């Protein structure tokens, strides 16, 4: 008998056909009680799902610009919640034995009904079981199932009602307003406190970005730093030796500096003033002479072959640098020419002495007012005004020359934004030292454009983008 009873883990259920016919009255009562229990369970689970749905609706209405899909999704989830609650409740429905146990607890019957139901499937009950069954059945008429198990809303109904009110109010608000969380975040982002917190971070990020770009550009421009077997690799002690050993290297740096367009150090300012192309041609020849000189004036113990190799490598380095610089300068000039041409077009018929735009105004700063039409002409792209302007800009950029007299700084490609009159370049910041294998030619990169303290941080990217778009349009 015990084995038969153990076969039903949850006790005998209503579906089992082995119940004694005497227990039908008891089973009917238990069935009605089970319906009420299931109804309460479905209600409770459905309300629980509604709690999550309403919370999701509130969140979505607070952050989502569109509400239609949110409402549709909520309706679908509500339907799924009902179906799931019903299915899950029916799947985990209590057995007759469990229902009887609950009724025992609720009615204080001291396990009479559950015992009777459990032993109600025994085929050959003994007298004590029958007596117990009779005792249990005698209590059934006194049971008040509706009073013991009323269908009632769960205790969370109040909370759900409050959530529903909040969600309704939020949706009504959203009919005419933006998502409140988005609006709050925007207003917070505009606040002075957030600006004071984020501004240094933004500056640092901009500097890092520019340094990274500069480093990448520099690495691309200096492929000749490779050390081949048999090369004269400078040892660390050479760094600390005085000018006697660095004379040749200083010459090389001078040559590089000349390539970077510093007319004061190149020793040939007239050629630089003739224009970019011409200056580039001239500069391309200078390093060769300098490198040759370095080889002759270098260490006397080096063999002639090594000197020739060093000279050829230095030559290739200078050529690549010159080529990159030439590309950068020509691009910059063409951009400036396009901008000036646009400015000229926009101001045709006006006062020709009025500064056409900020860009041209900056470039002609050293010469006073310049003729806008002259700047717009292709032949005057490398004219005096433009040349002088770029010269001033590079003076600003390379404002701290190497005390050893070696030009070790590389000017970045100038953009239209960086050349604005409001740009104030801080020579102390935005400078990064680039460690290269040839320690004698340390690359130093000067970045600018991120130190415009006059422009609020939150507008800098917009201004940057504006000018970049303007440049791209001109192209």
């Amino acid at each position: 008998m015990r084995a038969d009873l153990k076969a039903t883990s949850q006790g005998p259920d209503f579906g089992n056909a082995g119940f004694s016919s005497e227990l039908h009255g008891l089973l009917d009562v238990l069935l009605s009680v089970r319906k009420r229990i299931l109804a309460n369970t479905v209600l409770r689970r459905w309300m629980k799902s509604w709690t999550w749905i309403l919370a999701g609706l509130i969140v979505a209405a607070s952050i989502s610009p569109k509400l239609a899909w949110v409402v549709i999704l909520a309706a679908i989830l509500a339907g799924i919640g009902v179906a799931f609650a019903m299915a899950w409740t029916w799947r985990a429905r209590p057995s007759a034995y469990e229902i009887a146990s609950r009724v025992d607890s609720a009615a204080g019957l001291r396990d009479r009904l559950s015992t009777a139901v459990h032993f109600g499937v025994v085929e050959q009950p003994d007298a004590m079981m029958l007596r117990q069954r009779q005792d249990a059945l005698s209590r059934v008429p006194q049971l008040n199932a509706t009073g013991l198990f009323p269908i009632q809303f769960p205790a969370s109904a109040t909370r759900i009602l409050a959530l529903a009110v909040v969600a309704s109010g939020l949706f009504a608000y959203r009919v005419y307003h933006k998502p409140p969380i988005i609006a709050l975040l925007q207003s917070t982002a505009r606040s002075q406190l957030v600006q004071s917190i984020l501004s240094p971070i933004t500056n640092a990020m901009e500097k890092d970005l520019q340094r990274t770009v500069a480093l990448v550009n520099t690495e691309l421009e200096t492929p000749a730093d490779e050390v081949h077997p048999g090369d004269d690799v400078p040892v660390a002690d050479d760094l600390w030796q005085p000018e006697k050993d660095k004379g040749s290297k200083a010459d090389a740096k001078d040559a590089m500096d000349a390539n970077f367009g510093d007319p004061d150090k190149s020793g040939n300012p007239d050629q630089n003033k003739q224009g970019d192309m011409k200056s580039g041609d001239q500069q391309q020849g200078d390093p060769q002479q300098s490198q040759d000189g370095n080889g002759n004036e270098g260490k006397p113990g080096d063999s002639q072959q090594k000197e020739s190799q060093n000279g050829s490598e230095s030559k290739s380095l200078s050529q690549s640098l010159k080529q990159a610089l030439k590309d950068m300068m020509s691009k910059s000039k063409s951009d400036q020419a396009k901008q000036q041409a646009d400015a000229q077009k926009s101001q045709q018929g006006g006062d020709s002495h009025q500064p056409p735009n900020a860009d041209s105004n900056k470039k002609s700063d050293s010469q006073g007012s310049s003729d806008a039409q002259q700047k717009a002409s292709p032949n005057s792209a490398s004219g005096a005004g433009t040349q002088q302007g770029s010269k001033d800009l590079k003076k600003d950029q390379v404002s701290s020359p190497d005390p050893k007299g070696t030009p070790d700084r590389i000017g970045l490609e100038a953009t239209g934004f960086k050349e604005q009159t409001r740009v104030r370049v801080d020579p102390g910041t935005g400078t990064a030292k680039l460690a290269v294998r040839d320690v004698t030619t340390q690359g130093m990169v000067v970045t600018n454009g991120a130190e415009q303290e006059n422009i609020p941080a939150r507008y800098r990217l917009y201004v940057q983008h504006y000018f970049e778009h303007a440049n791209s349009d001109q192209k």
Partner: protein
Amino acid sequence: MTGSAQMEGQTGNPSLGQQAELLAKKMQEVRSEISKAIVGQTEVVDGVLNALLAGGHVLLEGAPGLGKTMLVRTLAQAVALKYSRIQFTPDLMPADVIGTSMVQEGGEGKHLLGFQPGPIFTNLLLADEINRATPKTQSALLEAMQEKQVTVGHTSHQLEEPFFVMATQNPLEMEGTYPLPEAQLDRFLFKLRVPFPGREDLHEILDRTTAGAGQQVASVIHGPEILEMRRVVRTVPIAPHVQEYVVKLVLATHSEGRENLLANKYIRYGSSPRGAQTLILGGKVRALLEGRFNVSMEDIRALLLPSLRHRIILNFEAQADGRTTDDLLDEIAGKIK
């Protein structure tokens, strides 16, 4: 013919249900007879009757003068059983309890070695202040309590049923006592604590004992009836969830389970399986005494303390924290549903 009688006729065992109803009625009569001599102490009386019908033994613990001996003597009169009393002292020997072989004069001038039964050969034995005897003498009761027999030499002597031991011990005077070993404690079905009577009960005790003669206790039930009642008790059905509750309770007193934090902290040894048997048997008796025919959770909870309090050994931490077995069992019962 009632419905129950009709059903009993169908099963061919018409007397079982009636015997159950008769048992409740008889026990009510015994209660009323005991109440003629014992004032109050309802729980103790119910516990003693429960153990009598369940076939177990009872250890009564209480201060002197609370009526322990009076209760046993009154019960013996009410149930019409043979009654004997042994006052346990340190110099009491096992032979003084179970008997010994003595040279007896037989017929034709022969002398034979015969067994002289001790006071244990009775139906209702009162072992007064059992913890004052040495463990050797205490152990003389082990076989009698469990197997209902005593062995002297190579001969085993069966004890007469029903055999019911009621032992008493004084919790105050512990000097010169020998605490009962766990094996013997486990053989007691219940350990009942005899409380001090309340004000009203005390007045009633004074009125009865200091004025006039006491009432005569009548015998309302006999030994064979008790044995039949014991058989009926075992037929009471118990639902699986009630039995599962008993198992949970007993397992909760063991410190092996990782979830038994209370047992891990305070209990050195938990209840034996006899504890679970006691709970169920006692629950069946209690159900019948209350006119029910099934064991309920309330029965188990009501019998938890007397059934398990002497089967649990606390550790040093519990003693240091002043925890008692009753506290821990109450806490365990509160946690297990």
